[in-house]
């Protein structure tokens, strides 16, 4: 009985550790591990990229908050959607982000990724700065974390790539689209 209890507690500890993802002071080291695990996967050229997809997203999924990204990308329109539309939009947007990210991975060829430290810009915002040393240029990549009020969890809600905010770009595009067309058309298009 007590052994059973201990294993339940242990399991619970493991599960919560995964669920309550990254503590504030560990953001850089956790991201360091993840980035290096991904670049190790990419450097191994014998396996085709498509076969590594599952492993790569397993590393990424628990720090990226796709649902929040979807909500920000839609801006004020989000609240006018029915719960069904919200769910459908979030699902399709997540797929779009993942497809886009995965499509970019084919350009990776042993570039060096350097983490440049994290900075708490607000009490519920942390930016993690990194640089990708490309073939002929150096690109800044900034991972932006927020602390969720309910779960106290730090998660990524946006990434600045070469100084351009990914989610802001989508937000503007969706706002432009919705000026002339409906939400349903947007859901169909993305």
């Amino acid at each position, binding site marked *: 009985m007590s052994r059973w209890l201990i294993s339940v507690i242990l399991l619970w500890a493991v599960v919560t550790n995964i669920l309550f993802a990254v503590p504030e002071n560990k953001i850089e080291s956790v991201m360091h591990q993840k980035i290096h695990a991904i670049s190790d996967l990419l450097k191994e050229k014998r396996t085709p990229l498509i076969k590594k997809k599952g492993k790569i997203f397993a590393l990424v999924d628990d720090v990226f908050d796709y649902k*929040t990204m979807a*909500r*920000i990308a839609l*801006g*004020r329109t989000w609240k006018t959607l029915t719960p069904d539309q919200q769910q459908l939009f979030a699902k399709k947007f997540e797929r779009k982000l993942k497809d*886009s990210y995965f*499509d*970019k991975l*084919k*350009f990776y060829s042993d570039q060096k990724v350097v983490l440049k430290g994290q900075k708490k810009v*607000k009490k*519920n915002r942390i930016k993690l700065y990194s*640089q990708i*040393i490309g*073939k*002929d240029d*150096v690109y800044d990549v900034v991972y932006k974390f*927020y602390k*969720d*009020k309910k779960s106290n969890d730090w998660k990524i*809600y946006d990434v600045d790539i*070469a*100084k*351009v*905010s990914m*989610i*802001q*770009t989508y*937000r*503007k*595009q*969706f*706002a*432009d*689209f919705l000026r002339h067309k409906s939400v349903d058309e947007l859901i169909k*298009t*993305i």
Partner: protein
Amino acid sequence: MKSYLMRLLLLFALFIYEGMAADLENNGSSVACANGVAVSEDGSDNGFDEEFSSCDQKVYDPLEGYNRWMTAFNDKLFLYLLDPVADGYSMVVPQPVRIGISNVINNLKFPLYFSNNLLQLKAEGSARELARFIINSTIGLLGLIDVATQIGIKPAREDFGQTLGYWGVGSGIPIVLPFLGPSNLRDTLSLGADWAASPLSYTGGSYQIPNNALEASGIKAVEMINTTSLHLGEYQSLKKDALDWYTFLRNSYEEKRRKEIDE
């Protein structure tokens, strides 16, 4: 005489430009949707509505018709000329050589980067660019190898558009340039100064390598083909992220420039 004329022309252009910029401000239609205007109704959104601009306000883009046409033109030019040429070139010239060419070109543009760091009174950037030039020109074999980046001295590239932005000149209306892509009024007018500061252009300066405009265009063409060859497929991949390629480029360009200037 020629360079004097150029300077006069530039001054004149700037003068007109300032007038137009002032006009824009008076009309109250601003180009950038820089800061968020939307305030969240309740506190439950973790403050994202303040952080991201909603951009309900339309971008003031009087040349939109032309800009769209030129974006389509550049797109065709890229897909049917530059990209296939760069692809063929990449198969003939090995990548280390192409990276070397890119390094040499960037190293030669030192006067451009350095002077614009100075014009913005950026001591650290100026020092970095100077150190890069000295290291890469010597140990880096006349710029062929970017030793400086390898030992951690990253580039601090600044151009005249950024210098004007630094001193408070707004970006003005969006303008898409043939061959060069998205730009705005300020950055377009800054091109003359950039060319004058670059040893790879031909504006009559004694330090400039090309002997005439044709040679300068040749160098520019090599630079474009070489750069494209190091980024094959990226254009096509980026285009997939866009619902509307023109506004995607216009907005990304503005955001990138704004952040470059703010740094």
